[in-house]
């Protein structure tokens, strides 16, 4: 326990998302890292990350997602997994699988790694590598096989969008062939690079409905053998997602340069000052930083959220989506059909329906990332 006042039960994080680096060998067109990711260097030392793990655990964290960018690019990943194991934290490596050797994967397993999540962009090398902006597909399959050979649990994650939604059945078949324990079919969240590519990636309602049905049938068929998650894109949901289970409520993200954040893109919101784990303790930041408290609870909510029955279920949706689509981070998430700005979502759907060809893809690359974040449409 920490020396300070006890953390209120309703205000303790369960999951630390350790974004160890924004560097990544892939250039995925849907990447959720901020557009200016190259400005956020890997500023934390091994000792800093070890302290972040210890302080997180003291705050109540029980799960750590080792993520990025590509976490395998950190040479000290082994040290972090070992410390997480010592702290009895559940560790999930969220990886592209590149660069990795079988020997390193075995080392990570021996140090206590609990789960490996490998991203698969599509079911053919041609399409997958087009989405990733690099030849990677065959290598990923190899890594997925190693995960199972070494007796580690395997999650496959495919981010779904217009370019691969029609392959949902084949994605399930691939996951079965690789003996995945868990398949995440996660529709793109249109933020970060995905928002820049929205006109190329947003599917039609019909495409989405077919994929959802295929996933539902597969889930029933594979019950008890493979867990299948299908995450609906909120552009077609009518009600917003409970983004991060509520701002500053369950998740704590630490960026490669040491910012403690309530979500992956909170540092793209204007007017908030994010504090660095090198300067203050995680407990101080989590409990007392004005930015963490900015959208906690319900006091900040505008109408229609403030009097909505669902406000304690969806927490007003996503603050980043509100800002990037309306210019106001404190607005109701426009994904909600009750939002006065819901028209921007409907317009994007109409545009998707009318589109015959795929516009040029914008790949995640550092040279572009010095550009300012795009705000309102």
């Amino acid at each position, binding site marked *: 326990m920490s020396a300070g006042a006890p953390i209120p039960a309703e205000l303790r994080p*369960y999951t630390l998302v350790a974004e160890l680096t924004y560097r990544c060998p892939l250039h995925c067109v849907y990447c959720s890292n901020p557009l200016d990711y190259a400005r956020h260097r890997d500023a934390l030392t091994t000792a800093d990350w070890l302290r972040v793990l210890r302080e997180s655990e003291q705050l*109540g964290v029980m799960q750590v997602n080792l993520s990025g960018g590509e976490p395998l690019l950190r040479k000290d990943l082994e040290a972090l997994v070992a410390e997480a194991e010592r702290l009895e934290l*559940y560790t999930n490596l969220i990886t592209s699988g590149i660069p990795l050797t079988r020997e390193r994967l075995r080392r990570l397993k021996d140090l206590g790694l609990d*789960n490996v999540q490998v991203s698969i962009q599509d079911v053919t090398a041609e399409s997958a590598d087009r989405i990733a902006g690099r030849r990677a597909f065959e290598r990923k399959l190899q890594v997925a096989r190693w995960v199972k050979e070494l007796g580690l*649990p395997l999650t496959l994650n495919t981010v779904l969008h217009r370019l691969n939604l029609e392959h949902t059945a084949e994605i399930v078949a691939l996951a079965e062939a690789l003996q995945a*324990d868990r398949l995440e079919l996660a529709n793109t969240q249109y933020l970060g690079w995905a928002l820049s590519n929205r006109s190329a990636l947003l599917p039609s309602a019909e495409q989405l409905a077919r994929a959802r049905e295929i996933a539902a049938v597969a889930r029933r068929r594979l019950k*008890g053998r*493979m867990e299948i998650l299908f995450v609906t894109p909120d552009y077609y949901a009518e009600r917003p997602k409970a983004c991060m289970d509520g701002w500053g409520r369950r998740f704590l993200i630490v960026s490669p340069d040491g910012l403690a954040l309530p979500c992956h893109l909170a540092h793209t919101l204007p007017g908030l000052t994010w504090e660095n784990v090198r300067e203050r303790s995680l407990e101080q930041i989590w409990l007392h930083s004005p930015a963490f408290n900015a959208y906690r609870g319900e006091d900040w909510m505008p109408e229609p959220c403030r009097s909505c029955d669902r406000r304690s279920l969806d927490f007003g949706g996503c603050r980043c989506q509100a800002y990037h689509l309306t210019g106001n981070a404190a607005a109701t998430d426009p994904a909600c059909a009750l939002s006065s700005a819901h028209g921007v979502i409907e317009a994007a759907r109409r545009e998707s329906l009318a589109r015959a060809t795929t516009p040029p893809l914008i790949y995640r690359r550092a040279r572009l990332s010095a550009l300012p974040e795009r705000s309102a449409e």
Partner: protein
Amino acid sequence: MISLESRLTLAGKARLRLDRKSGHYMLLYPEKGMRLNATAADIVQLCTGEHTVAEIIERLAAKYAAQPRTAIEKEVLTFLEALSERMLVCTET
């Protein structure tokens, strides 16, 4: 399906861990955590592959002697069935 003869082990992806904040046990698995009550924690701790489901019921019935045995039997079977459906325990019959 789980029978009284099944021997269950915790799945590789699942980990039992005491939540030092709440004093409850949590069953952790990718991206999720299940908060366990005292009985559920006892049941999971017995999923080591050594005990049959019948033996687990026996142990719990002895520990919670004040409760009707039928209720305990039902609770154990329902809970293990739910864990099995979520692939959090594996059967070794």
